[in-house]
């Protein structure tokens, strides 16, 4: 009967050996076998080359990693968010990420040495959200989503996932320290980023968005479906600008208003 030493290694054993997953005894026996078996040694070499080649091929086809904000770490936005509900109305859809953003805000506030009133304000907003959700009555009325946060820097990005059926975004600079974004039908998911917000809207949406930015913001870049749609400078922001989001009426890149 052939000993373990004489038995050829199967493919799984070669993988375990290559990945450093073989237990000590298996490793010792496999290594001894490889040293004396040209066939298994060649198969092991081929597996190693194939794995290395796969790593190269995958890396060559990778997309660049986009810059992303660090959730609630130092330098990230201090989020103050609430979902403004009209009395007696029910949330038809509760966007998970918007709720997560709210929780993120709560966590950020709780974890940071911000003034107590901010924490109280946020906690109260969350309580209102939960309470209103529980006691809703009218079935079809829409609810607004409102997110408020303090932006980092003097530029702001408003990034829509898609062109909509109709609707628009209105942006205006005011003498306030925060950015406030209101989605009038509450269907989109709002992800707060350090220097902007990502709005995961739907292609069939007709929502209107109201955005207030601090007067210190010098530039607002609006992107729709991954493309620059409009860049608003400080003058335009002071006057206020309404940008259509419908595919048929949106202005070409660099214009709009």
């Amino acid at each position, binding site marked *: 009967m052939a000993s373990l030493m004489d038995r050829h290694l199967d493919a799984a054993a070669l993988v375990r050996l290559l990945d450093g997953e073989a237990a000590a005894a298996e490793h010792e026996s496999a290594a001894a076998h490889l040293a004396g078996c040209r066939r298994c040694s060649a198969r092991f070499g081929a597996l190693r080359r194939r794995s290395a080649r796969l790593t190269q091929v995958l890396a060559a086809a990778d997309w660049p990693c986009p810059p*992303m904000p660090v959730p609630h770490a130092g330098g990230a936005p201090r989020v103050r968010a609430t979902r403004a509900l009209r009395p007696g109305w029910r949330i038809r859809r509760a966007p998970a990420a918007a709720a*997560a953003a709210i929780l993120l805000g709560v966590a950020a506030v709780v974890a940071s040495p911000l003034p107590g009133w901010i924490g109280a304000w946020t906690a109260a907003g969350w309580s209102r959200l939960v309470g209103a959700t529980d006691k809703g009555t009218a079935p079809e009325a829409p609810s607004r989503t409102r997110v408020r946060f303090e932006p980092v820097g003097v530029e702001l990005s408003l990034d829509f996932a898609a062109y909509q059926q109709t609707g628009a975004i209105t942006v205006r600079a005011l003498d306030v320290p925060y950015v406030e974004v209101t989605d009038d039908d509450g269907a989109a998911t709002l992800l707060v980023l350090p220097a902007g917000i990502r709005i995961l809207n739907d292609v069939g949406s007709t929502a209107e968005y109201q955005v207030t930015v601090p007067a210190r913001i010098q530039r607002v870049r609006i992107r729709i479906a991954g493309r620059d749609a409009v860049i608003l400078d400080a003058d335009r922001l002071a006057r206020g600008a309404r940008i259509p989001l419908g595919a048929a009426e949106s202005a070409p890149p660099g214009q709009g208003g």
Partner: protein
Amino acid sequence: MARLFAEHHASLFRYLARLTGDPELAADAAQEAFVRLVERPPRPDHVRAWLFTVGTNIAREWARTRGRRLRLLERNPARAPIGEPPPAPDVAAEAEHRRRLVQRALGRLSVRDRTLLLMREEGFRHREIAEAIGTTTGSIGTMIARALDKLAAELRLDEED
């Protein structure tokens, strides 16, 4: 959180982008996974595997939703985003070509095979891969070997040695 983000975000994005073939979805899913990490932090020694498992689930769920949206676009072309991105330069076109080839090959694997090979690429232990796909650690070596055979044939990895 900043340290966890710095350590794991790029790897998670890369894995999800390879898994789904959709970098925008991967970026959103990776971000969402970190948001959920804030909400429901796992045991400190399980953070990385937890992030990848949650990110995978989010990406798969959103991919299904996006599939519905794409079908809507096909039925209502007038609603589709207007215009296309500007023509890519040669380098970008070649990169895009490579991506298509790799994504086509990955797309021919089962979700399970794709997941385990891509998790292996990110350096996960066989135990962690087994937990993620719901199997035993002992079976992972065989599964990797078979999946690697399939992908090597699709990508002609051995021919290019």
